[in-house]
């Protein structure tokens, strides 16, 4: 339908207002987010000099190395695998926890939600060091076992410890979106399911889970993505015994002598492309829900 000149004028004003609101944020993202990304992308096609200096000579060698050297490929596979495990465990622990919180009376809910968030008040690094103290050979667990006359366990500096630390750190990011989804969920639907012959488990599987899937998906993305690139937990709890992609990138940029920024940049770029793929998949699934 044709718009009157008044309506068109109104639309133009509305658009100008939106642009004005958008501009500061856009500027911020452009300068501090997109630009550094571009720098990394450019670096990834450059050559590393003998002293770790950048040589402006375009090459694909970084990418060739990355996809042909077993240690690099393994790091990718390992990172993706531990991220899948972390997401899975966070989901298995987080969903029941979120459900438990939603089922509480309003006051208790608030308290429990705050308890979920309290760890954020302390620096992540400090909390991971705390886990070191708990898991160490002469740490909390083993001293307790020792006093009880039980054999001690080798806990710290294992992949299990890495996984534990990751699940611990990421759990709130799984709980909160699932909690939000469950909070919107109409529990009468579970009664309707039971009424129609579904056991508790089947009603969960056919009704509650599909309807809270957006929360699960959001939680999974929030947990999975940072886990792929992490290096702190595997360094402090895993004892840096195996290389994850985050550890490799960190080392290439900061620790190796000489540093290798182009290769590190290439690794970052590939990681981002992979993650972008996952995010696109996520958006695809959520928009399909909304249709």
């Amino acid at each position: 339908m044709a718009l009157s000149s008044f309506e068109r004028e109104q639309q133009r004003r509305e658009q100008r207002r939106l642009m004005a609101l958008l501009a500061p944020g856009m500027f911020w993202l452009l300068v501090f987010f997109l630009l550094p990304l571009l720098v990394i992308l450019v670096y990834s096609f450059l050559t590393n000099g003998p002293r770790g200096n950048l040589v402006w000579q375009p090459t694909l060698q970084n990418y060739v190395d990355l996809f042909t050297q077993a240690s690099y490929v393994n790091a990718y596979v390992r990172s993706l695998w531990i991220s899948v495990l972390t997401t899975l465990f966070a989901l298995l622990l987080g969903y029941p926890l979120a459900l438990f919180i939603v089922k509480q009376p309003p006051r208790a809910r608030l308290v429990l939600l705050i308890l979920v968030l309290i760890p954020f008040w302390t620096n992540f690094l400090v909390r991971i060091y705390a886990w070191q103290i708990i898991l160490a050979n002469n740490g909390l667990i083993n001293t307790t076992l020792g006093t009880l006359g039980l054999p001690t366990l080798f806990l710290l500096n294992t992949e299990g410890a890495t996984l534990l630390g990751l699940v611990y750190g990421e759990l709130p990011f799984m709980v909160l979106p699932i909690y939000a989804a469950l909070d919107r969920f109409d529990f009468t639907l579970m009664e309707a399911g039971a009424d129609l012959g579904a056991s508790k488990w089947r009603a969960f599987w056919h009704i509650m889970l599909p309807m809270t899937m957006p929360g699960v998906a959001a939680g999974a993305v929030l947990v999975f993505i940072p886990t792929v690139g992490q290096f702190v937990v595997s360094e402090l709890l895993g004892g840096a015994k195996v290389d994850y992609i985050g550890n490799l990138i960190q080392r290439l940029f900061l620790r190796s002598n000489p540093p290798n920024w182009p290769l590190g940049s290439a690794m970052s770029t590939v990681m981002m492309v992979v993650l972008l793929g996952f995010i696109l998949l996520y958006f695809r699934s959520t928009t399909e829900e909304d249709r």
Partner: protein
Amino acid sequence: MHKGYAIELANVVKRFGEVAAVDHVTLQIHDGEFFSLLGPSGCGKTTTLRMIAGFEYPSGGELMIHGRPMATVPPHHRPVNTVFQSYALFPHMTVAQNVAFGLKMKRVPRAELGARVQAALDMVRLAGFAERYPRQMSGGQQQRVALARALVNQPEVLLLDEPLGALDQKLRKEMQLELKSLQHRVGITFIFVTHDQEEALTMSDRIAVMNQGKVLQVGTPTEIYERPTCKFVADFIGETNFIEGKVVEQSDEYATIQTPDGLQLRGYTPRPVNLGEAATLSLRPEKARLVLPSHARPDDAFTMPVHVEMITYIGSDTRITVRLNEGRTLDVWEQNTLSTLDRNAYWQPGEAAVLVCPPANALVLTE
């Protein structure tokens, strides 16, 4: 216990903390009956229904479905289905998937499932809507999906929790008749919870009137309306005038009360009353007549000299408020049987009149 009852509740109690939401309810609901639980909000009608569905377990008493004890059987093992107040359709499933849900849970073979879903949708006249999602449908259509989803399972008893509450007045009336005729066709026992007395009267074979967790009276719509056994039921169902007094005479099923002002009023007693007991006369506005003082006859059960105070014309009826000499007002409804624009043919404010009523039209109730 009797095997002929679809549902039988014996002294069922449900306590939430200290509060008895349902307080020793005993009910027998026949096979194929359209039975309503009627009462104000918080009277325990929904809790009673939820116990039959299995969403709440009784704190005491016995609950049987077709003679089988059910008190602690979980809802998914009960031969009943529910139509929820909010419909509770599964938003992530199509209409067909919603209707198929119960059959799927019972692992009905695919071929049979499709045919039964189709038949259920046909029954509620939604044949073309199978692939829609609930949110794409109007309230009335969602209501019918909820019905189809329940009935497709061929339950022994269908439970309906204020299912028409969210519909507008016109649709509500339509659905009342549709539900009633549907019940006739499928022959399943319906237990219908409502706070709307007109709805209960329109649809039910029998009604249980509840208040504060107790069943006050069970009867056909006619019995409930014409012969309420207590003040609450007389007041809750339809409109009525209450006149307080003391029983001064009592014979057979009739009694006479005397008001503090000395008026003697005679009425039917659904429950026996004792001489000297405090009692209330319940007089429905359509059951009394106004006559000119010269027309009053001594054989009317009682006559009250009154003055016409206010006249409200509402189309089918004229509602007249009259004032007794002692000051109290009563309502009388007259049907507008004459088609005339001449309002002089009717009563005028300030006019003296006599309110007359045969004894069978008034009730003497104690509490």
